[in-house]
């Protein structure tokens, strides 16, 4: 990691820790939501940004994780166990969903995952004996961990932030291992990767399943955060939103999902004066970004810092972001 990158990261971490003390409870709620959605976006970034498989199913996995926790905890299962099972359940379902991914690519895969999301929504809505249908599940308790209650907004925010940090470090470590290299090979040229001895079949499944399991963990945090879940929260809209987050932040950049989630969660609040028009402004912004810099906000910063460095006559330092140039 280069120096400007390290400084930016240190400032961001300090801000994430200090900010809630300056905010009222709604602000803290938004920050918690950011941390929760960032986990799901990191997962989608693994699938899309590193392994190159477009998925519109991440919202459904968040839903499965959320329902998993909301159903298991009242049944007497301790929260940490429910949390891990949400991840494992989504890993298994993601693995199964990965099989179609082996047969088809690109837009077909987008449609298969889109169909999956709609099916999950229908099951959540119709199977009332399990999910309570359109009435949803309310009064989901926040967990007490090792005698530390996370009931208050501030405490729950630090719980989410801690979970985000642990997950991010684990993924960072994984991406630097041979697995992560194999994912990138898969994205850049699957046939060449195969000819170089990468087991593309297995790695595609792993990429899909890992991405899905992070969606499940995100849902496991989401349920106690909002304390009320219903099927329509996990429809296609959420999947589209998560996809936009990853792309806007910069897909394939490690910190892309953090930035994308920040923009998607906080921008609507900043643009609150514009009332209903903020979504139009956001959508127009995304379209402009796609026209000028499809690698997202971090791609934009990366490009700018390279341009500045080139003018100064140095090499090309980056923000500590590893993305092989095509």
């Amino acid at each position, binding site marked *: 990691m280069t120096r400007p990158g390290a400084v930016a990261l240190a400032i961001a971490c300090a801000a994430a820790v200090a900010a809630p003390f300056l905010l009222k409870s709604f602000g803290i709620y938004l920050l918690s939501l950011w941390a929760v959605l960032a986990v799901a976006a990191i997962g989608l970034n693994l699938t899309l940004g590193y392994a190159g498989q477009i998925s519109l199913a991440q919202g459904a996995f968040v839903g499965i994780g959320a329902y998993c926790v909301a159903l298991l905890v009242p049944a007497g299962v301790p929260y940490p166990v429910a949390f891990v099972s949400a991840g494992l359940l989504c890993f298994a379902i993601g693995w199964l969903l990965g099989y*179609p991914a082996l047969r*088809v690519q690109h837009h077909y895969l987008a*449609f298969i995952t889109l169909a999956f999301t*709609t099916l999950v929504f229908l099951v959540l809505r119709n199977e009332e004996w399990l999910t309570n249908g359109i009435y949803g599940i309310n009064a989901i308790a926040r967990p007490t961990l090792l005698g530390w209650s996370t009931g208050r907004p501030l405490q729950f925010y630090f719980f989410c932030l801690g979970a985000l940090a642990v997950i991010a470090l684990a993924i960072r470590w994984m991406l630097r291992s041979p697995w992560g290299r194999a994912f990138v090979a898969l994205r850049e040229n699957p046939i060449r990767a195969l000819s170089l001895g990468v087991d593309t079949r297995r790695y595609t499944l792993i990429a899909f399943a890992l991405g899905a399991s992070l969606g499940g963990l995100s849902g496991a945090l989401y349920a106690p955060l909002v304390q009320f879940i219903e099927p329509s929260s996990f429809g296609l809209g959420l999947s589209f939103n998560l*996809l936009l987050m990853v792309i806007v932040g910069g897909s394939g950049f490690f910190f892309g999902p953090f930035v994308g989630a920040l923009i998607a969660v906080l921008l609507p609040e900043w643009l609150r004066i514009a009332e209903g028009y903020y979504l139009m402004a956001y*959508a127009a912004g995304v*379209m402009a970004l*796609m*026209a000028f810099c*499809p690698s997202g906000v971090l791609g934009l910063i990366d490009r700018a810092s390279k341009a500045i460095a080139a003018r100064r006559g140095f090499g090309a330092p980056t923000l500590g972001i590893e993305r092989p140039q095509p």
Partner: protein
Amino acid sequence: MASFIQLLVSGLATGAIYALIAVGFTLLWQASQTINFAQGEFVMLPAFFVLAAMNMGAPFWLAALIGIALSVAILGLLFKLIIVDPILRQGVLPLVISTIALSLFLKESAKDFYSSQAQPFPTLVPAIDVHIFGAVVSTQSLAVLAVAIVTVVALHLLLAKTRLGRSMQATAQNPALAVILGIPVRRMVLLTFLLNAVLVAIASILVSPIYLAKFSNGETLGLAAFLAAIIGGFNQVRGAILGGVILGVLDNLSAAYLSSQYRGAFPLLILIVVILIRPQGLLGRLEERTV
């Protein structure tokens, strides 16, 4: 039996509308590799153009023409020039993302500038029930079916029988060769976008009396169009027609005979099966790709 005929006719009518939307969708894909995730919103919007024109005092037939014209200008020309052209250079994925954002944009504009409530929409013909072989069929379904069939036949004649249509097909199949043959490829691609805009406008006028004009209509309609296009075959116009009709009929029959709660699920299951067994669609050709 009578109820079966009823369901079949209304299913055919819905399917014909799906087919129109899906044909436009596949035309765009063939001509410029554009996967238009906003296609459903493209169908939602022209109804509001028509309503706006009628609010200004235009009679229905004039308002419908104005709606189609506005649709051609905005959803055809502007869409091509402002969104597709600059972004297609960046690749297919950015364009997919962009059309997802566009669908959000169109939905919000209809909501903020017109209304968030469902709006009643005039029917083509007065709704009278007709008795055929003991079944009760509404004239509305028959009118929808008639307009859709005429449109599809006209489209087929245009694409297969005229010089213009054959140039468009050549452009879709092999742009490089089409240029060598002296076909103005860029103009043909633009024409495809305009054609799509006409198709979605007609579909909008047909579907809005049934579903009412509402900003959120695009979600179901867009999904139906994707499903129809993929089930039938992404790269064939007649595939999209077949897919649309299958979907409409199946939707009505499964809701009546199997489960109305899961009516949305059957097309999705068929989609998954088709993609797994025959990814090119029922009538589609395999697309080869180079390494």
